[in-house]
C-alpha cells in the first residue's frame, strides 16, 4: 500500500479484519475486499482527493455511531418493482451491472463491506416519465440503490435529503428509456460521499438535476457512460455553500460509442469560508465519432474568503466530434444588486433574487430550492 497514511491504512486494516457484514449475502463483496487489499484506499492529498481531505471522511467511517435514519421510506408507483437487498429475490432483478470500475472508485468498496441498506428498483416498460420513485430515507449509513429502467420505460427518481456516510446509486438506462434523476442535498453537519454511476444504452437518456447545499464534507462522484449509439445525458447541478461547508463534485461523462450527446451545466455560489469544487471531465473514446459534448460551469464568490475550484477536463480520442467547455468565477454583480435596490427591494432580498436567478440557469426547481433554503 504505497503512499499509505495512518488514516487510510487504519480504515483498510479495520475493514479487512472485520470483513463484510451479513446483510444481503447474495451481494458480491469479494471484489470490494480485493480492491482494498490490493490497492488500498485513497491517500490524503492523492490527485483524486486534491480538494477534499478524505481523512476526515475516514474518521467518520471509523466512528461507531453515525446519524442514520431508522427505517426505509420510499414511495414508488405500483408498476415499479422495489425490493430490499435483504430479499434474496432482489438478486434476480439484476444481472451484473458493471456501471463503474471499483478500482477507480475505491470508496465504493468501503460501502460494499459496510453495506446495511440496499434497494433494487426495476422500472418495467410502460412506466411513464410522470411517475416517481422517491427515496426519502434508508436505514444504514452505507447505502446502495440499483436502478434498471427497462427498454422504452421512463421514470423520475428523486433522492430527498437524508444523512448517510456513503451512498451509491447505480442505474442502467436501457434502449430508448429515460431516467430523470433529481437529487436534493440539504445543508448538513455530516461527512457524506456518494457515487452515481449510470450506463445509458442506445437511444436512452439520463437527466440529472442536482441541488446541493454544503455539508461538513460532501463529495459527489458522478459517472455517466454513454454506452450506445445516440445515447444522451443532461447533467444540471446547482449549489450554494456557506459557513465552512465543503462540497466536491467530481463528474465524468464518457462517450464510448458514436453519436452520443452530453450537456453539463453547473452553477455554484460560495460564501463565507466555504469551498466548492467542480471537476468536470468529458472523455471521448476512440471511435466515438459524432459525439457532441458541452460543459459550462459558472461560479459566484459571494465573499472573498470563499474558495471555488472549477476545472473542466477534456480527453478526446476521436477526430470528428463537437466538444466545448466554459468556466467562469466571479463576484456578485453589484450593479444588479443596486438595480434591484433602486426599485425598493431591500439588499438581502436583492442578493437572494440575484443568486436565485444565477442558479436557475442550471436548475429551475424553485419550490424545492426554497424548501432547502437555497434562496435567501
Amino acid at each position: 500500500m504505497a503512499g499509505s497514511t495512518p488514516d487510510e491504512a487504519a480504515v483498510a486494516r479495520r475493514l479487512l479484519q472485520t470483513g463484510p457484514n451479513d446483510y444481503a449475502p447474495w451481494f458480491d463483496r469479494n471484489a470490494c475486499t480485493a480492491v482494498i487489499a490490493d490497492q488500498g484506499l485513497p491517500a490524503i492529498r492523492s490527485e483524486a482527493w486534491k480538494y477534499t481531505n478524505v481523512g476526515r471522511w475516514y474518521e467518520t467511517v471509523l466512528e461507531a455511531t453515525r446519524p442514520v435514519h431508522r427505517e426505509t421510506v420510499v414511495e414508488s408507483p405500483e408498476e415499479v418493482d422495489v425490493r430490499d437487498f435483504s430479499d434474496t429475490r432482489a438478486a434476480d432483478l439484476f444481472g451484473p451491472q458493471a456501471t463503474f470500475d471499483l478500482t477507480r472508485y475505491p470508496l465504493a468498496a468501503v460501502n460494499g463491506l459496510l453495506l446495511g441498506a440496499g434497494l433494487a428498483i426495476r422500472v418495467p416498460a410502460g412506466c411513464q416519465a410522470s411517475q416517481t420513485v422517491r427515496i426519502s430515507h434508508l436505514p444504514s449509513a452505507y447505502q446502495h440503490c440499483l436502478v434498471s429502467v427497462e427498454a422504452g420505460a421512463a421514470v423520475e427518481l428523486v433522492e430527498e435529503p437524508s444523512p448517510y456516510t456513503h451512498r451509491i446509486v447505480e442505474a442502467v438506462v436501457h434502449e430508448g428509456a429515460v431516467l430523470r434523476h433529481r437529487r436534493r442535498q440539504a445543508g448538513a453537519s455530516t461527512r457524506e460521499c456518494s457515487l452515481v454511476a449510470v450506463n445509458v444504452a442506445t437511444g436512452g437518456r439520463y437527466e440529472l438535476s442536482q441541488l446541493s447545499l454544503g455539508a461538513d464534507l460532501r463529495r459527489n462522484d458522478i459517472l455517466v457512460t454513454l454506452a450506445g449509439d445516440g445515447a444522451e445525458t443532461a447533467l444540471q447541478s446547482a449549489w450554494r455553500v456557506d459557513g465552512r461547508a465543503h462540497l466536491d463534485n467530481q463528474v465524468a461523462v464518457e462517450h464510448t460509442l458514436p453519436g452520443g450527446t452530453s450537456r453539463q451545466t453547473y452553477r455554484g455560489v460560495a460564501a463565507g469560508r466555504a469551498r466548492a469544487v467542480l471537476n468536470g471531465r468529458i472523455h471521448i473514446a476512440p471511435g466515438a465519432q459524432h459525439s457532441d459534448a458541452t460543459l459550462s460551469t459558472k461560479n459566484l464568490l459571494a465573499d472573498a474568503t470563499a474558495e471555488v475550484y472549477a476545472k473542466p477536463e477534456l480527453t478526446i480520442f476521436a477526430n470528428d466530434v463537437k466538444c466545448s467547455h466554459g468556466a467562469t468565477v466571479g463576484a456578485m454583480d453589484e450593479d444588479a444588486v443596486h438595480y434591484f435596490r433602486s426599485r425598493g427591494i431591500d439588499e438581502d432580498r436583492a442578493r437572494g433574487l440575484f443568486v436565485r436567478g444565477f442558479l436557475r440557469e442550471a436548475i429551475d426547481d424553485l419550490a424545492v430550492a426554497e424548501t432547502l433554503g437555497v434562496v435567501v
Partner: protein
Amino acid sequence: MSLLRVDELRVDVDDKTILNGLSLAVDAGEVHAVMGPNGSGKSTFANVLAGRPGYDVTGGTIAMDGADITELAPEERSHRGLFLAFQYPVEIPGVSNMEFLKAAVDAQARIRGEDEPSAPEFIGRARDAASRLDLDVDFLKRGVNDGFSGGEKKRNEILQMLLLEPRLAVLDETDSGLDIDALQVVAAGINAFRDEGNAVVLVTHYQRLLNYVVPDRVHVLTGGRIVRSGDRSLALELEEKGYGWLDA
C-alpha cells in the same frame, strides 16, 4: 415645500470632484430638464439622487418633501417615491422581468402598509403597461433586460416607472439610443405618467425628447453645477448654439 430640493451638492468620484455645488428645486407637478455637455456631471447627479454606491458626497444635501435623504439607502429612497430610469439598465439573466417587477411592487406595497397585489391583478397591470409601451407580453417573461435591444431596455425602465408610480422620476438619458418611433412611445409613457402630484427630472444631452415631453424648466449643468436656468426656449437655444456658447 419642494418635492425635490438639492442644495450645494458636492460629490467626488475616485477623489475627483464631479459635482461642485449643484442646487436645484423641483415642485410637484413640474417637469425639469437638466442638460449639459458630455462629462458635465449629469449622470453622476442622477446616480447620486438614487444613492448608487461609489459616489462620495462631500457636501450639501438632497431633500424630498423637506426630509434629508442624502444618506439613505437606495431602497429607502425608492420607498419615499424616488425612481431612477437608468441610462444603462442592468441585464440579469435568470430573474424574469415579471418576477422582478412583482418583487418591486410588493416591496413598495409593504412599505406603504398596503396589501401586495394578487398575481392576476398584478399581471393585468403589467400587461396593460406593456401594451401602452408597445411591448409584447412575452417581454414580461424574459430575463430582466436579458438580450433586450437598447430601445427595449429604455422602454422597460418606463414600464417600471408606470408600475411603481413614483413621486419623483429621474430619467437618465432615457432618450439615447431610441429611434424616432420608440422616442415617441417613451415620451407618451412619460406624459401619461405626469400629474399634479409627481415630478419628472429629465437628464439629457439633446433637446429632441423635449419636443415631446415639454419641460417647465430647463437647467444647464456644466462643471458640476447649474450655470443657467430658464424655460423651454433655453433648450432650443442650446440646440442652436451648442454648449460652448455658455462659456462665452
